[in-house]
C-alpha cells in the first residue's frame, strides 16, 4: 500500500497560479495604426468614339485613322414598332356543362364521359388574318368549378399550341362538392416560346386555336358520382398578355403612322458648343424587314423643330417585301441622300441639337394580298431607319462641351487626410478647359471645385492638380460633375488618334483598425 498524503497548501497555490497565467491575457482591444498610402484609382481615356458615342448608343461607330481621320457611322437610328402585329388581344373562353334533366340524383360510374367536344377558340378583335405565331411571352389563366357530388375529371387539350414540341394540355381532377359550395381549381399555364397554329380544327381557318375538351369521371377513382339536374361544371380559360415574337398570315392593308423622334445630342452629356460637321457621305435608309409590301411616305423632317426639305419628302415610295429564306433576312431598302437637304441638316447638327424628327406614314400591303397569306414578321428585327455617315475630322470647334457625372459611394477610411491627384493628358491638337465639382448632396459639406486648362498637343499637354480630401468627404456619398470643353483657333485637322486621358490617384494617411 502506497503512502497517501493530502495536497499541501503550497501545491494548491502553485496550481491556482498556473490557472491565472493560462487565463490571463484575454482582455483584447482593437489594434490601430496609421499608414501612408499612394494608389492610382482611375485611368480613363476618351477617344473620338467615346466623345461621340453619347450621341447614339446603338450605333456602329468607328474612327478611321488618317490625315484627316474619318468618323464612320453605320447603324440604326430609329425602329418602327407595329403594335397590331406584336400583341394579341386578351381572350376569354368559357364552357359550361349542365345535365339536360331535372331532379336526380343519377349515379354516374367511374370512367364515364359527360362531354367530349372539339372546337376552335377564336381571337376576336384582330383585323389581320394570322395563320401562325410564336409567342415571346403570355399565359393562360384557367379556372374550373363543379357542384357535382362526385369526382370530376377535366381534360383540356390545345393540339395546335406547342412548347418545345409538346402540346399544351390541362388535366384537372376536382374532388366532390359538398352540395353547398362549388369545388374550384385555378392556375396558370406559361406560354413563353409557344408555337401556335391559328388555322383551327379544320386547318383552313384564321385566328383560331383548335381545342378539345373532355369532361367525365375519373376511371382510376372508385367513386360513383351523384348528379342532379341542377349541377353544373364550368371551365374558363383566359389568354392574357400575348406578346408576339414571330407572326405569319395576311397582315391586311393597315396604315401605320410613322413619327420618329431621335435624340442626337443629349444636353446632359453635350451642354453646348459648335462642332463643324461636313460629311462626305450621309444616307438615311429605310429597311423593310417585313415580308409584306409597304408604301412609305416621309412627310417632314425637322431638327429641334426647324424644318428641313428634301426632294423625297412628301412622295410615296413603294418598298417591296423583305425576303426571308431559311431564317435569313434580305431586307428591302429605300434610301435618301441627306446631303440634299435644305438647309443642310449637318449644318444644323453642328450646333449639337437634341432631337431629329421624321414624320410620315406607311401602308402595309398597298396592292392587297399578293402573297396569298404568306406575310411574315419577326418582331426581333423590326423595320428601321439606318444612317450611313462618313465624316472627315476637319473643322472648327468652338467651346464644344462634354459633361459627365460620376456617383461615388462612401468609402470608410478612418482618419484619412491627404490629396486626390488629378492628372489630365491631352492628345488633341486643341485646348481643353476642365471644370469639375465634387459635391455632396443633402449634406452641409462644402463642395470641392477643380479647374484647369490643358494646353493643346503637342507640347505642355499635361495638367496635374492636388485636391485636399479628408475622412469626412470620403465617407459621404458624393457626385463628381465633370465638364470638359474643347476649343480650336480656326479649322483644325484631326487624325482620329487623339486621346484625352484622365488619371486620378490618392495619396495620404489613414488609420487602420483591426478589431
Amino acid at each position, binding site marked *: 500500500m502506497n503512502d*497517501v498524503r*493530502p495536497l499541501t497548501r503550497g501545491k494548491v497555490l502553485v496550481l491556482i497560479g498556473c490557472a491565472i497565467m493560462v487565463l490571463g491575457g484575454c482582455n*483584447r482591444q482593437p489594434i490601430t495604426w496609421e499608414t501612408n498610402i499612394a*494608389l492610382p484609382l482611375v485611368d*480613363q481615356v476618351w477617344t473620338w468614339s467615346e466623345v461621340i458615342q453619347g450621341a447614339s448608343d446603338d450605333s456602329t461607330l468607328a474612327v478611321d485613322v488618317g490625315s484627316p481621320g474619318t468618323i464612320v457611322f453605320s447603324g440604326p437610328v430609329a425602329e418602327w414598332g407595329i403594335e397590331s402585329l406584336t400583341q394579341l388581344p386578351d381572350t376569354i373562353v368559357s364552357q359550361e356543362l349542365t345535365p339536360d334533366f331535372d331532379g336526380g340524383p343519377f349515379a354516374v360510374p367511374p370512367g364515364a364521359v359527360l362531354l367530349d367536344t372539339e372546337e376552335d377558340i377564336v381571337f376576336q378583335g384582330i383585323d389581320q388574318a394570322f395563320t401562325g405565331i410564336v409567342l415571346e411571352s403570355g399565359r393562360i389563366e384557367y379556372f374550373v368549378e363543379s357542384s357535382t357530388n362526385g369526382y370530376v375529371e377535366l381534360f383540356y387539350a390545345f393540339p395546335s399550341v406547342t412548347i418545345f414540341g409538346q402540346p399544351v394540355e390541362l388535366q384537372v381532377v376536382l374532388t366532390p362538392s359538398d352540395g353547398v359550395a362549388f369545388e374550384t381549381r385555378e392556375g396558370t399555364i406559361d406560354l413563353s416560346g409557344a408555337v401556335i397554329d391559328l388555322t383551327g380544327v379544320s386547318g383552313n381557318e384564321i385566328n383560331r386555336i383548335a381545342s378539345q375538351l373532355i369532361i367525365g369521371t375519373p376511371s382510376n377513382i372508385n367513386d360513383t358520382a351523384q348528379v342532379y339536374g341542377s349541377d353544373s361544371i364550368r371551365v374558363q380559360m383566359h389568354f392574357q398578355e400575348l406578346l408576339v415574337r414571330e407572326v405569319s398570315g395576311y397582315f391586311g392593308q393597315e396604315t401605320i403612322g410613322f413619327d420618329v423622334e431621335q435624340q442626337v445630342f443629349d444636353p446632359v452629356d453635350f451642354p453646348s458648343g459648335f462642332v463643324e460637321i461636313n460629311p462626305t457621305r450621309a444616307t438615311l435608309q429605310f429597311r423593310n424587314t417585313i415580308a409584306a409590301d409597304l408604301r412609305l411616305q416621309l412627310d417632314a423632317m425637322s431638327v429641334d423643330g426647324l424644318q428641313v426639305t428634301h426632294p423625297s419628302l412628301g412622295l410615296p415610295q413603294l418598298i417591296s417585301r423583305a425576303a426571308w429564306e431559311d431564317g435569313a433576312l434580305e431586307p428591302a431598302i429605300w434610301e435618301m441622300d441627306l446631303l440634299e437637304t435644305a438647309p443642310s441638316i449637318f449644318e444644323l447638327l453642328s450646333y449639337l441639337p437634341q432631337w431629329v424628327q421624321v414624320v410620315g406614314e406607311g401602308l402595309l400591303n398597298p396592292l392587297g394580298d399578293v402573297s396569298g397569306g404568306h406575310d411574315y414578321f419577326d418582331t426581333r428585327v423590326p423595320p428601321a431607319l439606318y444612317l450611313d455617315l462618313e465624316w472627315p475630322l476637319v473643322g472648327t470647334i468652338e467651346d464644344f462641351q462634354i459633361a459627365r457625372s460620376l456617383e461615388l459611394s462612401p468609402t470608410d477610411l478612418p482618419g484619412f487626410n491627404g490629396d486626390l491627384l488629378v492628372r489630365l493628358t491631352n492628345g488633341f491638337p486643341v485646348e481643353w478647359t476642365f471644370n469639375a465639382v465634387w459635391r455632396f448632396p443633402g449634406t452641409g459639406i462644402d463642395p470641392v471645385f477643380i479647374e484647369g486648362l490643358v494646353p493643346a498637343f503637342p507640347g505642355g499637354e499635361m495638367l496635374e492638380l492636388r485636391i485636399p480630401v479628408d475622412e469626412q468627404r470620403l465617407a459621404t456619398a458624393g457626385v463628381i460633375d465633370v465638364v470638359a470643353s474643347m476649343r480650336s483657333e480656326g479649322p483644325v485637322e484631326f487624325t482620329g488618334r487623339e486621346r484625352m486621358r484622365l488619371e486620378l*490617384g490618392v495619396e495620404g494617411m489613414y488609420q487602420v483598425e483591426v478589431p
Partner: protein
Amino acid sequence: MAPMWVAAQLDSIPWTLTVWGQQRSNSLDRDMGQKLFRGGHITPEMVASSSAAQGQDMGALGFTTGVDWRWTSLKAWKNSNARICGSIQGKWVGDSRWTPELLDLVFSGNAGHLGRWDVLDGSRVRTAAWMNAAIGLEGQNQNRIEIGLVYLPAYTGVHIRNGYFHVDEDIDSLQAYMRADAEVSQRAAWGSAINAEWHFLREEAPFAFHLRIQNLGWAVVPKMTQWKVDTLIETTGLTFQGPEWSLEAVQQEGWGAGFASVDSNKTVVRMLPARLDASFEYPLGPRSGWDVQVQLGEWMPLPRAITGYRRAIGKQWQAGIQMIAGGWGRLRPAAWARWRVPGEHAIVIYLEDPFGWGTHSAFGRGITLQFQNM
C-alpha cells in the same frame, strides 16, 4: 469525498505539472508584440524601431503556451521493469514570418517608398491549439514512450508563397501579385501523436545526454475551409464605368469573388508542430555543471540553441543561467531556479530573457513554472 480521493491519489505517485508561456520575436519588441496580441495603438516610432531591428532579415514572431501534466505509476507492468506512465497536455502554438517590405507596407504604407518592389514571398501566419492525452510505458533511466489521442479544436494558417506589390513614383501604375493560400478548420480534428524520451545516464560516464520528442503525430481535420489565390493585377487605374474593372463595378456586391477559389468542405490531414529536444549535461564539479541544448521543430524558423551553467546552492536550491539563440528571436539570456524538498516535491521557475519583464524594448519574454511531486 471525491476531491479528497483524487488528491490522495495524486500525492501517491510521482507527477510533474508544467505551465509555460513565452512570446519571442527577432524584430517586434515587447511593446509592439503586446499591441498585436492585446490591441492598442501602434505608433510610427514603434514601427520604425521594429523595422530597424529586423533589417533585411525575415521577421519572425512566435508564441507557445500550455500546460503539461505527466505521471508515472509506482506499480510494475506485467512483472517487468516498466511502469505505466502518461501525460495530458494542452498546447497553443503560433508562428508568423514576414519580409521587411511586408512590415513596411502594412504598418507604414507604400507612400514612403514609391517605385520599390515590395517582396512578400514566404510571409505567413499559423496557429494550432490541441490537447494530447497519452499513455505509455516508462523503463530504466526514466526512458519512456507514450502514444496519445489528439484533440485539435483550432487550426488556422495563411501563407503567401509568392507576392509582390509596386506603385511607381508617379502614382500612375500598380502591380500586385499574390499566390497564397489560407485555411481555417471549421470542426475539431482528432488524431494521434507519440511522445518519447531517451536518457543516457551512466554512473561510469561523466556526462548525461537526453533526447525528447513531443507531439510527433497528425490530426484529421474533417472540415477545413481553404482559400487559394493566384492573381496578378496590373493597372494604371480603373475606368469610371464598365463591366469588370471600373469604379462602378468594384462598388458592386460580390466583385472580386473570383480572385480566390474556396473549398469549404475539405477533409485534410495536418501534422502537429512536433518538437525534438536534445540536451547534453557535463559536470564541471561536484556542485556545478554545463548544459547544452538544441530544440527543433514546433514551427520555429530556426533551431533553438541553449547553453548554460548550473550550480547547486545548499541542499535544497539549484540555479542556472543560460544563453539562448535561434527560435523566433535573437540572442537572449535565461535564468532558472529550483527549490526541492528531498523526497517530497520540487518547484522550478524558469525565466527566458528576464530583462523582458522589466523593459518594453525586449523582444519577448517567457516563463515556465514546474511542480514536481516526487
